[in-house]
């Protein structure tokens, strides 16, 4: 079986965000880019699934500029067989990304797709569901437990206050949440092997944007508040402030 895992190349979560000169995107000068943390769970689950099946192939797909190859290499070093870079120099909205992914998934003939539940840049968390609807595939988002039994898919997904157990069947897209697994580290051997693996480059499918960013700005900074005290004797005053000033308890 061919398994596709979709990844994205995002600023490290420790990044301090500055607005770029265009006023619409971040200033990426000096920013370290990494594989999207949730996509690591996706790569791990794809590899585990292939190992369990004892046969098959895992292909990593991303969309973006040449810089994204770094993130593809990371997945290859973890054990993914080959990579595809769908080239587009311009940022896309979620539907634009989903359309390019859907085209590639169709071309690959893949029935089982994993991706992170959201990328930690735009935080939309909808690409999996959009891609699935474009392909008429099933989709279970925010998965913390996954099981494939023939054509049958059983997954647990995180929702408010607990977990839903969801049943569906292939072809399916699973979006992965922290807790699903422990992503493996790339071994030295894996890193060396990754250098020999192929990354196919092709133009991403064209699309017409359905949204437009007008501007990006930083949230209004909070004024540092009041230090009420330095030990338990400050507790009554803190409670009074919460009650009478903030009126929150």
């Amino acid at each position, binding site marked *: 079986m061919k398994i596709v895992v979709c990844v994205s190349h995002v600023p490290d979560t420790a990044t301090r965000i500055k607005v770029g000169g265009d006023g619409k995107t971040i200033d990426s000068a000096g920013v370290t880019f990494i594989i999207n*943390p949730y996509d690591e769970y996706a790569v791990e689950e794809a590899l585990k699934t292939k190992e369990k099946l004892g046969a098959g192939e895992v292909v990593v797909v991303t969309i973006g500029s040449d810089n994204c190859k770094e993130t593809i290499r990371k997945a290859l070093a973890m054990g993914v067989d080959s990579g595809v870079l769908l080239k587009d120099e311009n940022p896309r909205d979620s539907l634009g990304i989903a359309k390019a992914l859907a085209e590639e998934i169709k071309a690959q003939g893949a029935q089982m797709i994993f991706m992170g539940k959201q990328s930690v840049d735009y935080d939309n968390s909808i690409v999996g569901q959009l891609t699935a609807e474009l392909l008429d595939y099933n989709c279970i988002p925010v998965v913390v437990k996954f099981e494939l039994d023939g054509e049958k898919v059983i997954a647990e997904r995180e929702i408010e206050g607990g977990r839903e157990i969801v049943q*569906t069947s292939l072809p399916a897209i699973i979006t992965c949440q922290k807790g699903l697994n422990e992503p493996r580290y790339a071994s030295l051997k894996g890193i060396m092997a990754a250098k020999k693996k192929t990354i196919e480059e092709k133009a991403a499918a064209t699309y017409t944007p359905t949204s437009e960013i007008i501007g990006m700005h930083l*949230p209004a900074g*909070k004024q540092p508040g*009041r230090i009420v005290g330095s030990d338990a004797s400050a507790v009554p005053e803190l409670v009074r402030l919460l009650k009478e000033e903030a009126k*929150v*308890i």
Partner: protein
Amino acid sequence: MTNKILAVLEQRESIIKRSAFEVAHTAANLAKDLNTGAEAVVVGNSVSNIDEISKYGIKKITHLKNVELENYSSSGYTEALVAFAKESDFEVLVISNTALGKDLAPRLSVKLGAGCVVDCIKINVSGNDLNFTRPTYAGKALIDMKLLTSKKVITIRPNVFKAQVSENSQPPEVIVKELASVNLNSKVTEFKKAAGKLDVSEADIIVSGGRGIKGPENFHLIEELADALGAAVGASRAVVDAGWRPHNEQVGQTGKTVSPTLYVACGISGAIQHLAGMSSSKYIVAINKDKDAPIFNVADYGITGDLFEILPALTSEIKKTK
């Protein structure tokens, strides 16, 4: 006048959720601003509090009903809602940005040929145009955006848009539509409740613990304060990665982004990825030994001291006020 705005309401265990009333009220306000009408729809088998909807400015609600929809089904809900929305030609669908809303909104947008914007914290109306503000980078930056399509699917962040109750409301017009069939390609077979009583993403008050709590055996101090306040228990990434707490409690960039009325950070230094996930809380209290900890830069009130001494005192003081 036809209603062009549709509030898609979420029910769990037959009860329409509070976040859905925020959706109803937001839809009613949008309708006013756009000079049109709004109505609501709810999907499920039974709904017990359907009449409450009129308090939030909605006069008409349709219940898409089938016994197979006792539990959530993404395929079943999508099919039923798409058919309903097409039939009445709604232009704007509003949904809450909950697990269900996030799952459903993109699916509806594809099938309706609508643009989709999620997790809005502000909607500006000027003339017939809608502009949306939403957080990115877990709240480290905000973007203003618009949809270029005439049909729109919007999700709004829970706890941000208020559900104001209007006075002297009449009971709503309720239309029950029995669905002949349900698409169950994908369905929920069971719901497993988490051990905690409240989820951080839905709580009004959150008490969170960080590395300063020193070990999982001391987390009862956090839980007791949370109990006294009627709050949810949260945790920092360090604490979750160490295996002290389950990841569904994690607040921050690789956990949940929250905006409760009150956030109490205990023994949390305030790494940038944690701050991103909670600084939009209305009030923040920080308790930390290190007076230089970054958490104090966003806190409204702070105590720079030993949490092992302060937390029990705070818990008993809160109990006294109740």
